[in-house]
């Protein structure tokens, strides 16, 4: 009874007299009708409009709430939760630096293993006695292209012995020779030379070093001989230093010269900038003889190519050619 009286007082008060608030009443009635109609009408998808609208609106609310939660989680994870990350970052940076150093060491070790494997393969196939040596130093003088190896007279190394690598001829040992070290004059040195011939045509000549690019020139090849770019140049053995048939490089350009000889440039197979391990041929240098040079078309030991294939041997030094091999005097240079 008391509740009914209180309800009557509240409902009869001017504040809750709905007739005095016609606009609100109209709004409520309109919304009520829309909801009522929506509850009975199906949309094109077969779902009731009220359900679809309710779900759509609620999904937006859910999406907004999820976005707020996601933002809060990101805020927590990216800022508040990362308070201790600075120290961890420093530790990880140090670890990364250490691992990078180790990685470089492992890469160097792997490269050295590959190089030694190639050298070992070469040593097993070469018929002449050899000894493996490490390149321990270069030459501080840019004009002299020499390196220092860790083999010397105690290992049987003497001056004018040939130094070869898996890719081809590298150079020769020059005096003085220490007991545990020796200097090697590279073939690309401007004072170095080696007897050579074109593998395809057996045209003989002499390969000398130069300061240009490519760093090798082939001289004393007659203009009448056919030499084309791409031809392989191998040692002829006429110099008495380098064994016959070892690869030197590939002809890059060949032009008819103004006098008797062609102007030929050769790209060496050996990468002289990255020498690490070499083989020293333990054969004493000897003077060149006509028998060693051979005649064109003469069958002989097949030359070694960079790929390990063997090509027909032979070749002859042109008549009147200077003795290749060793160090030329400046007056010998053409």
């Amino acid at each position: 009874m008391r509740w009914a009286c209180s309800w009557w007082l509240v409902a009869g008060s001017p504040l809750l007299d709905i007739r005095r608030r016609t606009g609100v009443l109209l709004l409520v009635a309109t919304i009520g009708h829309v909801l009522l109609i929506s509850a009975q009408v199906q949309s094109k998808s077969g779902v009731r409009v009220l359900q679809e609208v309710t779900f759509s609106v609620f999904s937006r609310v859910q999406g907004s709430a999820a976005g707020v939660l996601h933002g809060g989680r990101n805020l927590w994870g990216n800022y508040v939760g990362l308070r201790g990350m600075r120290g961890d970052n420093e530790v990880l940076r140090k670890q990364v630096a250490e691992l990078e150093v180790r990685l470089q060491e492992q890469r160097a070790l792997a490269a050295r293993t590959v190089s030694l494997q190639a050298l070992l393969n070469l040593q097993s196939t070469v018929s002449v006695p050899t000894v493996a040596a490490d390149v321990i130093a270069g030459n501080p003088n840019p004009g002299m292209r020499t390196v220092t190896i860790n083999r010397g007279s105690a290992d049987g190394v003497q001056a004018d012995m040939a130094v070869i690598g898996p890719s081809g001829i590298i150079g020769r040992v020059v005096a003085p020779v220490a007991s545990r070290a020796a200097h090697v004059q590279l073939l690309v040195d401007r004072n170095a030379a080696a007897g050579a011939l074109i593998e395809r045509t057996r045209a003989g000549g002499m390969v000398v070093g130069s300061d240009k690019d490519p760093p090798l020139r082939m001289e004393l090849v007659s203009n009448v001989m056919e030499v084309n770019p791409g031809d392989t140049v191998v040692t002829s053995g006429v110099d008495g230093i380098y064994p016959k048939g070892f690869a030197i490089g590939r002809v890059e350009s060949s032009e008819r010269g103004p006098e008797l000889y062609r102007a030929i440039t050769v790209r060496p197979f050996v990468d002289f900038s990255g020498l690490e391990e070499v083989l020293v041929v333990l054969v004493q240098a000897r003077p060149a003889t006509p028998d060693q040079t051979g005649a064109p078309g003469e069958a002989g030991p097949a030359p070694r190519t960079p790929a390990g294939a063997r090509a027909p041997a032979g070749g002859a030094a042109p008549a009147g050619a200077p003795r290749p091999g060793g160090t030329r005097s400046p007056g010998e240079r053409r």
Partner: protein
Amino acid sequence: MRTAGVIVALGIALLLQTMLAGMSIGGATIVNLVLVAVVYVALAYGAATGLLAGAVGGLLQDALAGGIVGVGSLPKTLVGFMVGVLGAQFIVSQPVPRFVLFVGATLVHELCFQAVYALVEFRAFHMQYSATLTQAVVNAAIGLIAFQAVEWGPGLVQRRDSRRAAFSSRRRF
């Protein structure tokens, strides 16, 4: 008293409307007595009562019709509110303004009704203007008759009672 009068008016209008359901012009109903009752209530008692009468009467009419409940009551609610507001703003005690209001209310009701149906049934808006105008005129006529009947009714009874009283006193003397 007012609420009871409104409910009675709506009930009578619904009863008569169901009885006149067979009367139609081109498929459209020739008269809408519930709408007449709503307009009458709105003019007589104001916007709030008019929209409530429209809502209740429309809902009852929709429930009896068997269609989507609310499609007919929403236009009647709007019309009840609109007529109530206009009736409060202008002097509509004369037959001509009332006639205009009845015609306008019918047109607005039909307009809203067809629009809501077009929205609900996903079809193009379609309105039979001639039938709607006819219904508007008939509704207006019935509404005017109702107003005149209600306004003249008490006077007629009073005059009849006074006439009877005068006649009996004359016989006594």
